[in-house]
């Protein structure tokens, strides 16, 4: 069945030419010389005032990177990237580590104001508050959890982190990774590269060599992080690549919910974003990681846009630990991203919820990996892909059970919807069972609403269109519900999208 009109309208609203965050700000920047060499790596490390071991770590990654070739297995197509034509470091000039918000360049603050990101603590509530008409019963308790601490990363550096004091009182460390390397070197040394090693893949290795900033979160034993943590990434400067590195550690029994958002100006040339995110959950810990990815997707002709080549991986290191990834992907010219879980601890749990919408000439190749190593580990994958225009939308996922992973359990469900006959939707799941007690189920359904469901709703006097909307709402909520309330508002725009007539 073809998509219903309502769906087409909804998707058109988030089409590439409707990009709202494409403005550019002119801020005086401090940049490293263009190109990549050992000197660039040394420059970045020196700028950050890093200890010698960190520089050595970076250089080792750089040398490794030189021996690697760009991966080409993903279903994406783009001209070769000239790694010598990129600035690897660009920082707003006025910020040699501002101690308070007043010292931050007002131009930068304006950028965040325009983006609707709350940086001033007293304005936090007002900042996330949306006009009443945009809320409905699904998010009327959006503000229940109150405040959000924000780390704002502008090109290569973190400009400000809010609520640090209050978090510190709870024992939670939330700061930029550069600061963490200086202030908490032992923690960083212990965990960095332990989930995504420097040798992992082409882009992760590049990131290890030249990462400039990102967030660091440490939640000590038994602490439930008192507020949502959030990082907002903005690429502003021309010809720069953004290489951020995020490291989140939850000790025994701790809990944190972390959100990430990103935007970039509208430009004709492509810009590279190669991030690495590492999550470590010890015994009984839980990490919830949510992303609303809205990088500039390129124009209607497919010109420009961000290349989003990201390595995200969580390690359920402890028994009974849990890592949950939720992503709403609407931006980027090319997305190459597979948030994964290594289920190492016994009884650990991994989850992946994704909505990927592609339009224009966007190419999305995204999915997850669930690597079951421990006993009684469970994982769940729910993926919804929507392709329109000339875009290509691929789900690529792997579920594997190690020989010792007795009673491993996985459920995978991926649906996709095509709008128009110029786009493509693809499903490439890999299932590898090396254990007889493993139980894997994969389904990619044609999510045409069942006649029974529709009949049930309609015989109560609800017209067909509304009945469909109602059922679809319930259907997509499976993913939307996993988002923290603060982000649900943004994701709400996608909620009404009908998945009728979708294909597996």
């Amino acid at each position: 069945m073809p998509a219903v009109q309502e769906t087409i309208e909804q998707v058109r609203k988030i089409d590439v030419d409707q990009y709202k965050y494409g403005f550019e700000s002119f801020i005086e920047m401090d940049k490293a010389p263009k190109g990549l060499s050992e000197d660039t790596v040394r420059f970045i490390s020196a700028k950050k005032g890093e200890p010698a071991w960190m520089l050595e770590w970076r250089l080792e990654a750089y040398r490794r990177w030189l021996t690697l070739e760009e991966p080409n297995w993903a279903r994406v197509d783009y001209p070769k990237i000239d790694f010598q034509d990129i600035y690897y470091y660009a920082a707003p000039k006025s910020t040699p580590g501002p101690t308070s918000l007043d010292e931050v360049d007002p131009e930068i603050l304006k950028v965040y104001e325009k983006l609707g990101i709350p940086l001033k603590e007293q304005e936090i509530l007002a900042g996330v508050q949306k006009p009443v008409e945009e809320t409905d019963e699904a998010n009327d308790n959006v503000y229940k959890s109150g405040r959000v601490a924000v780390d704002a990363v502008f090109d290569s550096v973190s400009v400000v982190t809010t609520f640090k004091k209050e978090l510190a009182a709870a024992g939670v460390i939330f700061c930029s990774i550069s600061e963490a390397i200086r202030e908490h070197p032992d923690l960083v040394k212990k965990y960095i590269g332990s989930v995504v090693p420097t040798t992992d893949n082409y882009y992760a290795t590049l990131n290890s060599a030249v990462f400039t900033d990102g967030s660091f979160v440490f939640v000590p034993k038994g602490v439930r992080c008192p507020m949502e943590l959030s990082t907002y990434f903005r690429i502003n400067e021309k010809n720069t690549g953004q290489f951020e590195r995020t490291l989140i550690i939850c000790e025994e029994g701790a809990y944190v919910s972390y959100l990430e958002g990103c935007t970039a100006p509208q430009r004709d040339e492509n810009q590279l974003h190669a991030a690495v995110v590492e999550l470590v959950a010890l015994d009984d810990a839980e990490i919830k990681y949510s992303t609303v990815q809205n990088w500039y997707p390129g124009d209607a002709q497919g010109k420009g846009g961000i290349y989003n080549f990201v390595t995200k991986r969580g390690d359920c290191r402890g028994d009974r630990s849990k890592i949950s990834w939720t992503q709403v992907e609407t931006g980027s010219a090319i997305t190459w991203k597979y948030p994964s879980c290594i289920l190492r601890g016994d009884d650990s749990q991994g989850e992946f919820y994704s909505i990927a919408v592609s339009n224009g000439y966007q190419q999305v190749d995204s999915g997850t990996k669930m690597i079951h190593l421990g006993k009684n580990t469970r994982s769940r994958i729910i993926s919804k892909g929507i392709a329109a225009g000339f875009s290509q939308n691929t789900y690529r996922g792997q579920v594997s059970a190690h020989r010792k992973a007795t009673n491993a359990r996985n459920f995978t469900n991926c649906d996709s919807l095509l709008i128009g006959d110029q786009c493509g939707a693809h499903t490439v799941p890999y299932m590898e069972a090396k254990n007889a007690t493993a139980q894997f189920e994969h389904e990619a359904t044609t999510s045409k609403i069942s006649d029974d469901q529709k009949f049930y709703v309609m015989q109560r006097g609800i017209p067909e269109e509304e009945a469909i909307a109602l059922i679809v709402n319930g259907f997509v909520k499976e993913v939307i519900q996993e988002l923290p309330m603060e982000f649900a508002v943004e994701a709400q725009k996608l909620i009404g999208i009908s998945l009728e007539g979708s294909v597996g």
Partner: protein
Amino acid sequence: MNIHATPQRTPAETAFVDAFGDRLTQLPGDPAVMIKRDSAIEQVKAGLPTRRIESWHYTDLRRLLTSVADFDAAVSTTALAPLIEGSKVLTLANGVSADDKVALDGVSVVRLAEKLVDGSFAPALDLYGADDAIGAVNSAFVADGYFVDIADGVELEHPLEMQNLQGGAQSHVRLPVRAGKGVKATIVERQTGTGAATVSCVSQLLIGDDAEITWVIVQEQPDSATHLAQFKAEIGANAKLRLFFMNAGGKLVRQEVIVKAAGEGAEFTMRGVNLLSGDAHTDVTMVLDHAVPNTSSTELVRNIVTGRAKGVFQGRINVHQYAQKTDAKMACNTLLLSDDAEFSTKPELEIFADDVQCGHGATVTEIDRTHLFYLMARGIEEKAARGLLVKAFLAEVIEEMEDEPLVEALEAKLNDWFETHV
């Protein structure tokens, strides 16, 4: 990690390359065929596929193919009784055709050795792509087989059975079949023999409009044999193809199924059973193209894996841009019966049309304990109960063939396998 060194030739690669040099003068072929052979061996020289080649991800042929049997004209084989009584049997012994006359109206059978020199066959030796290793090995070495042409409108009362028998040496055969418009026929392909043989077989089926073909592959190679097979078919408008395969032997087995629904209204049904035991490595890889509007397909593959066996199922359904109203469904269910058994599956969908219904499902699990309990509570011993459940799991697929003599014959094969392997 992405570091490519120039690889040294493995013993198997060397054996193929050397054998080609030795046998070149004996291989039949007109000049066009010989050119195809040359380019095919070049592909083999470039190296057998490794797990880095996506379509060979779970079957690293370069590593798994440790040795190749010698060519030996002297090995003997024993003909089999046909799977279904009354079938017309065509035998290939040690890669050589034994029959060239078949007394069936409207059916012409020519030895492939003759076809290879008549100036018409070269295009059929084209490879499917850069990763078509089976096609390359076969095109380089194919020396015989049967070329079967069934005239328009012919309805065969009894199945036509082609037996490819190998007694421990190496052979490469092809079975091209052209079924004209409105043909109704059942064709059985048997693959068996003795000893540590190396066999490649490419079956090519062209189905005319409105025809209905049932093709049954029964592979029962000995536990030490290498079996590399390809089944290629193109289905005409409103024609139907029902493919059934049973893999019940072999050490290293790769069965490729490459089907194109080429005419509107074409229908493809695939049912398969993989019975894996011992150290077997069996890979079934399917690529299905829905190239025109209004075509449909269903595929169901069931596997049981015991011992230290490894099983693979890869299935890719391509729905082309103009193939609107495609209806495609694929499922692969696996029961792992031992701790060391492994199964990997990759059911892919590539869809470029928006008004289609496509779906796939895949499961891997062990025997449901509640089912086992149900039977045991009724006084059935655990072993017998397990056997019943596994047989039921597989019989379901076979029974869908709806052709009584065929179902009975296949169920008998299933029972034989259970007696010797479980």
